[in-house]
């Protein structure tokens, strides 16, 4: 057992760090819910107010941004689930020539991430006339190497006998995939889904490049325009706007935090 002194020290350090880590968010809450003059003054009896939220709501089309973000993340996730399942299964269980080469090509995307290729991908999207559309924001992310890899690893752990049995009963390739593999990989789907949604909900640079108007602009880009110093908005109002923008994901995260953490850990272990 650790000596008491070291334990106390370790306990204090852990909690000091924990408070430092949660403090900025709490501070944003404080500033957003109190009149501007309390932004730097702490007073437990300071009156609560929603005026900053009203101002923020009136200054930017948050509903539209949120709708765009939901459509983009939904679009990306649904395509990812289908494409990665098919590719993951083919790479895990179907013998064909050039399989390892193809797997290598897939893994390359873990290193050469689409974020870095914004210049060329913008060119491609302009040629496809998909600038400023949800599809345009989503397209580069739909074939996720991470998702393919994760599902391939999971499918490989499914016992071959299960597949053989299903095959004997007359299941086709797709039937086997749908009835045997997909149900067994549920935890992986959940893990990948949560990681993917939180990544694309928060993504900024690529959406900034391909969106021009509120037609497709997601929350992060809207938040950046809203919060930019040159827009001259009061800091508590920026806090309120920021909280509106991160609210939905943050609430879902707080309710299902155990699930989220497990999912991130599950995805990280592979």
């Amino acid at each position, binding site marked *: 057992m650790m000596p008491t002194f070291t334990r106390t020290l370790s306990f204090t350090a852990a909690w000091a760090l924990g408070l430092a880590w949660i403090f900025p968010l709490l501070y944003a809450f404080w500033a957003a819910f109190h009149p501007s003059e309390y932004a730097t003054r702490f007073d437990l009896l300071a009156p609560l107010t929603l005026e900053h939220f009203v101002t923020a709501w009136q200054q930017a089309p948050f509903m539209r941004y949120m709708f765009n973000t939901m459509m983009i993340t939904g679009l990306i996730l649904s395509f990812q689930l289908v494409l990665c399942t098919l590719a993951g299964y083919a790479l895990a269980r179907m013998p064909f020539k050039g399989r390892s080469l193809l797997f290598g090509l897939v893994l390359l995307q873990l290193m050469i991430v689409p974020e870095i290729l914004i210049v060329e991908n913008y060119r491609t999207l302009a040629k496809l006339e998909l600038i400023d559309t949800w599809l345009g924001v989503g397209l580069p992310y739909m074939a996720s190497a991470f998702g393919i890899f994760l599902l391939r690893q999971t499918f490989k752990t499914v016992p071959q006998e299960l597949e053989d049995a299903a095959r004997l009963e007359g299941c086709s390739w797709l039937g086997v995939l749908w009835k045997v593999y997909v149900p067994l990989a549920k935890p992986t789907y959940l893990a990948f889904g949560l990681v993917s949604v939180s990544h694309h909900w928060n993504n900024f640079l690529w959406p900034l490049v391909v969106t021009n108007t509120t037609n497709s602009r997601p929350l992060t880009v809207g938040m950046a325009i809203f*919060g930019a110093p040159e827009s001259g908005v009061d800091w508590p109002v920026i806090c309120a706007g920021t909280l509106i923008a991160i609210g939905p994901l943050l609430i879902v995260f707080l309710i299902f935090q155990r699930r989220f953490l497990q999912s*991130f850990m599950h995805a990280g272990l592979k």
Partner: protein
Amino acid sequence: MNRFNQLYAWLMLLPALVLLLAFTHIPALTTLWHSLFFPARGRNPSEFAGLENYRSMLDDAVFWQAFHNNLWYAIGTVPTSMALALAMALWVNSKISGRAALRLAYFTPTMLPMIAVANIWLFFYTPEIGLFNKILNSVGLTGINWLGDPNWALISLMLMTIWKESGFFMIFYLAALQSLNKDIYAAAAVENASPLYVFRRITLPLLMPTTLFVLVNAVLNAFKLVDHLFILTKGGPNNATNLLLYYIYENAFSFFDSNYAAALTLVLLILLILLAVVQFLLVERRIHYR
């Protein structure tokens, strides 16, 4: 039958493959191609430039500054956030009181978009009324112009990045810690090994593969995450915080020289691949020696 299966496999891979090629592999190659041209000006089509873009890169002081900044940014953020992540994982994995709350506190920054974080931290860094300077003033120190002083701006960005990223890396260490074999710790307890000895001789070596994984991801993040620059500094003051990917963005979408941006992108790509290979070789060797 076998030929039929082959066809089937290719068909299943096809949709993913087309998108991967279209948005990862082919753009990586056309980056090279486009970097060999001058940008089209007005009605003139773009002219072949040979290696001219690369030559001007060598003379481009801003490129070198962004390059140096990015290296310092990686050196300043990666080891610190990894060490913090490991400490957090060890704490959260131990029998510390309130560990569920601690875990939540550590992890929450991961769930916030970098833009939101920057919006909030911008106020902490404000010169006169910002929180950090108020704290400094209250203990009798003069305030720092966090984002306006070229000597401090990059450090300010690093501080915020460490805060944002540590909790994310903690998750990987935590997952690894929970999957470690308990028997070896029981054996160490029988031998009366000190906690420090157990950590250095058992935990740390067993975590080596995780460390490699986190290291690769952390370095990658140091080069691909520039969202906060758009809010906090825009690369300034005087390019003191300009990073490679932000400079690529500026060239392509503010200066409209996508060919020079392509040349810069290629440099960044090569840099990342080299870093990955080096890291892999280094850590691989250490794992085998154990």
